[in-house]
Every structure is written in structure tokens, then in C-alpha cells.
């Protein structure tokens, strides 16, 4: 018995030693093979088009010759362009702030109630996020309808004047932001609720003994503990909101008189409706800087946490 073992072990070890180098190489080969479809999809359908967009933006309308920064110079001279820049920033920043506020507040309310009831409430509160935005925006369009607005019906019954929801530029801007907040705040709610659950209860108890009120508990305990999640959720949402297309396209089509256009819808109008692909590409490229900044910040955040783990 012991003889067999003694004889077997060196054989096994030497066998492994002989096979080790090709085995490692085989492993790498298999690993690259498994990742190959992913690399192909990302290279062909994301990286290549993103770079191609830069090239397209430097061509003339018929895409025959190179005009350098001509498309950008053309855009800069248009008032509508600066309106779109302003509206995109106002839209994205205010929508993200309100989404974060609503999510933060509602997450605290859900967290306050007994655990067994939370599932039900959370389930109802997440519904706006589940419905395809194009479909729910249709419902909002109908709620804001100029002649049959259900909101105006309520206002009329309260004795208040009617509002031209989508006809007045300021109200139309308010409406697209409102719908975006409605669609997006459940995401913040879920993220903040998960973060709230990870705040140790002892901290709140210690604060309560020290006489902290609810605001102090939120300000000095919850906010610092949730800072990471708050930052990363806001950045994610800023990217998505900045690139938003569905809501503006369905609700206002950019109108009245281009007052609610954002980069995505205006680029669509140029490239698909107006058949001027280079101008559309140039417009859509203005979404890139904010993406780069957000990506940089998120990456730094991820790396930092990777170091802690």
C-alpha cells in the first residue's frame, strides 16, 4: 500500500510539472475564446460607432468631403443650438436633483414602516420604473391633453385657471422634467433603500440617547453613511437623463418652437427626420463630455472601493 503511494506521488508531481506550461496556455486560450463574442459585440457595435460618430461629424451634408469643424461652427451660429444646450443642462440637472430628493425622502418613509409591510409599498412605488417609458409618457401626454386634460378638469373644479401644459414653453419644460422625475425616482428609491438598510441601527440608537432629532440623524448619520451610493446613483442617472430621448420625443417633440429639445431629440431631428447625418452626429457628440466626466468619477469610485475590498 505505502509502496504504491510512494511510487504514485512522484509520478503525479512530475506529470503535473511536465504539463504545467501548456495547461496555462490552454487556460488563457479558453478564457480569450469565452470573452471573444463580448469583445466582438463591443468593438463592432459600440466602440466602432462611437469613433465613427466623430468622423461623421466632420463631413458635409452629402458626406462627400471633409469639412473639419464646419458642422460645429454652423451649430454655434444657431440660436436653437444654444437653447438646446441650455435646456439639456437644465433638464438633466434639475431632473436628477428632484429624482434624488424624491428617492431619498420616500426611501426614508419606506424604511420607517415595519419590515413586513415594506415589500408591498416598495412594489407599488417601483411601478413607474417597470413600465416602458414610451408607454407611460403616452399616459402623461393624455393627462396633459390641451382640450381634455384630466389635470385641468381638477383645476377647474377647484376654481383655478386652466394651464396650457404643453403649449406654454415654461410649463412644457416643467412637464418634461416632471415626467422624467416620475420615471426615474423609483430607481433612486431602491438604491437609497438598500443603502439605508446597511446603516447600522446602533448609530441611530446612540444618537437618540444623545438627544438627536430626526433631522440630525439624517444629516449626521444617514447622509455620510450613504454618500457613496448617493454619488454613484446620481452620476448614473445624470448620464441616462442627459441622453434621454423617449420623454421629450413623445411629450413635446421638442416644441413649442424648439423650447424643450434636448441633444438626443435634436440630433434625431437632424439625422433621421432632416436627413443630415453629419449635423446630427455633431449634435449628439455634445453628450460625450458629460459622459467622460461621469465615467471618470464613477471609475475612481469603483477603484477606491476595489482597494478597500
Amino acid at each position, binding site marked *: 500500500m505505502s509502496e504504491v503511494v510512494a511510487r504514485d506521488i512522484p509520478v503525479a508531481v512530475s506529470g503535473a510539472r511536465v504539463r504545467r506550461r501548456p495547461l496555462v496556455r490552454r*487556460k*488563457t486560450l*479558453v*478564457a480569450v475564446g469565452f470573452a471573444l*463574442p463580448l*469583445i466582438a*459585440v*463591443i468593438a463592432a*457595435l*459600440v*466602440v466602432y*460607432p*462611437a469613433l*465613427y460618430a466623430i468622423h*461623421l461629424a466632420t463631413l458635409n451634408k452629402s458626406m462627400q468631403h471633409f469639412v473639419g469643424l464646419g458642422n460645429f461652427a454652423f451649430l454655434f451660429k444657431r440660436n436653437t443650438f444654444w437653447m438646446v444646450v441650455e435646456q439639456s443642462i437644465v433638464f438633466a440637472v434639475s431632473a436628477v436633483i428632484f429624482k434624488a430628493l424624491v428617492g431619498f425622502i420616500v426611501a426614508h*418613509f419606506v424604511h420607517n*414602516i415595519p419590515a413586513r409591510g415594506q415589500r408591498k409599498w*416598495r*412594489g407599488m*412605488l*417601483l*411601478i413607474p*420604473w*417597470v*413600465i*416602458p*417609458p*414610451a*408607454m*407611460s409618457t*403616452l*399616459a402623461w401626454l*393624455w*393627462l396633459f*391633453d390641451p382640450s*381634455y386634460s*384630466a389635470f385641468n378638469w381638477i383645476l377647474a373644479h377647484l376654481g383655478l385657471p386652466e394651464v396650457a401644459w404643453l403649449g406654454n414653453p415654461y410649463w412644457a419644460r416643467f412637464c418634461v422634467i416632471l415626467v422624467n422625475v416620475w420615471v426615474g425616482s*423609483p430607481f433612486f428609491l431602491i*438604491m437609497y433603500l*438598500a443603502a439605508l438598510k446597511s446603516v447600522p441601527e446602533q448609530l441611530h440608537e446612540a444618537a437618540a440617547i444623545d*438627544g438627536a*432629532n430626526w433631522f440630525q440623524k439624517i444629516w449626521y448619520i444617514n447622509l455620510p453613511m450613504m454618500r457613496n451610493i448617493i454619488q*454613484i446613483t446620481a452620476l448614473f442617472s445624470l*448620464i441616462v437623463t442627459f*441622453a434621454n*430621448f*423617449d420623454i421629450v*420625443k*413623445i411629450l413635446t417633440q421638442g416644441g413649442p418652437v424648439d423650447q424643450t429639445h434636448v*441633444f438626443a431629440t435634436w*440630433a434625431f431631428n437632424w*439625422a*433621421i427626420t432632416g436627413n443630415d447625418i453629419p449635423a446630427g*452626429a455633431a449634435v449628439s*457628440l455634445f*453628450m460625450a463630455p458629460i459622459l467622460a466626466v*461621469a*465615467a471618470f468619477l*464613477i471609475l475612481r469610485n*469603483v477603484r477606491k472601493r476595489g482597494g478597500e475590498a
Partner: protein
Amino acid sequence: MTAATTVHGAPTRAASYGSIARSRRRTLYWSYFFLAVFVVFFLTPPLYMLVTSLKSSAEISAAANPWWVERPTLENYIALLTENQFLTFFKNSALIAVCVVAVTMAIAILAAYSLSRMGFWGSATLATGVFLTYLIPDSLLFIPLFKTFAWIHDVTGIELINHWWVLILLYPTLTVPFCTWIMIGYFASIPKELDEAALIDGASYFQVLTRVFIPVALPGIIAATIFAFTVSWANFLYPLAFTTSADQLVLPAGIVTTLIKGDVFNWGQIMTGALLGAAPPLIIYAFLMDYYISGLTAGATKG
């Protein structure tokens, strides 16, 4: 205990027990009150969809109470569900969703296994790259893709634009990076001992994946599958840009472009179509809410 201490909620020492309990109860009532307010805000549009979908066009144009149905009727549902066009949208959407989910999950699981466990030169950079591509939105990609597809048509004669199946090519730009990213997170949380034991027992890498990783990470796979399905069902920009003929459209874009004809809005049918278009994700959500939420939080927190 005075009334003042309960009102301010900052208990004095003498009265601490009773007033903490009371202030907790008050917090609870206020929480329920505000939750109810927010639920009303969050559920108004879907409920209004339902109310309108049950109305006849005569009742809608009568401008009576818009929030209530006098004579509920299913005529809008019958009209849409017996109409070939709407059923075509539904069929196109369902086929695309199934194909996109299958393709996405195959790519994402293989790649996540490779990147999270096997590793090769540059695999960490690639994982970060996957995450970065997830941040590139469809509204930046559709123009160059549109031009590229037109170019493919010019060179090879294969017409890609205005076919519903081209969306199977396009949606992975949105689903693959995210699903790979969350699968990397799930796979990384599996103890190394499990796959090492399987490898020592003589399993191949593919067997380790199918026999160990996929069963253990099944909740993550379900979450990623739900995400891929929801995204491919809900996307609006790609179909609007790439498909125009009525028989090639998918649900969200189809409803918006065909039911809104000029200035004539048949709101009863539009709301019915919107509700039916929202139904598949809602049904999945109703049954698999926990997976849905874990996928949502995994994307931003894992990594």
C-alpha cells in the same frame, strides 16, 4: 409628561420611555400618510391608462369626469387584439426580446466567467471597458449605426434598415455590457474552492461553468435576463430610427407612430395599446420583483 414634550419629539429624561414610543408611532403614521401621497403620484398615469382604456370614444369626447368610467366597455381591447397590425407589433417585440435575451445571456455568461475567474492578459482592463461601454447611450450610437447599415447595404446589397430583425443586432449594444457587468459581480462572489474542486476532479472549464457557476449564480442570471428583456421590450429610439413600415414595427414605437394619426388621437385605443405594451414587463415584475430589484442594485454597487 407634558403635551409640549410630545409635540417637539425631543424627549426630556423623565418622560423618555412614553414619549419615544409615542413619537415613533407618530413617525409611523406620517410615514404611511406620505407614502400614500407618493403612491398616488406614482400610480396616477397607469391607473389613468386603465380608466381611459375602458371608455368608448363617445364617452371620452363627452368631456365628463375624466377620472371615472360611466359605462365600462372592452371595445378598445377587442379592436386592438383582433387587429393584425397590433398583433404583428406584439409578435415582433416578443421574437426580438427572446432572441436578444438568448444572445445577450450567452455572450454575457461566457465573458463574465472568463473575466471574473479565468483571466488573461488585459482581462481587468477589459472588464472596466465593458463598464464604460455601458455608459454610452443609444442616443449617441444610433446615428453612426444608421450610417454604417446604409453603407453595408451599398456594399453588399443586404438591406438592414426597415427590418424588424435588425433590432436583434442593435439591442445587444444596450444589454450586453450591463449584463456582463452584473454577471462578473455575481460570479466573483462564488467561492474559489468550488470551481477548484471541480477542476481537480477533472472537469473542463466549460463543465465548471455549466455545472458549478450557472447553478450557483442562477439568481443573478435571472436578474440579468429580466434586465435584458425589459430593455429590449422598452427601447423606443432604435425602432423609431431603424424601422418605418407598419409591419416591421415593434410595440412601443408601433403604438406611437400608428395610433397617433396626424391630429386625430384615438385616446381610448392609444391607452389600451400602451397598457398592453406595458403588460409583459409588469407581469414579470409582479412575479419576480426580488430578482428585478437585485439586478437593479447589483449594476451600481457591485464591482
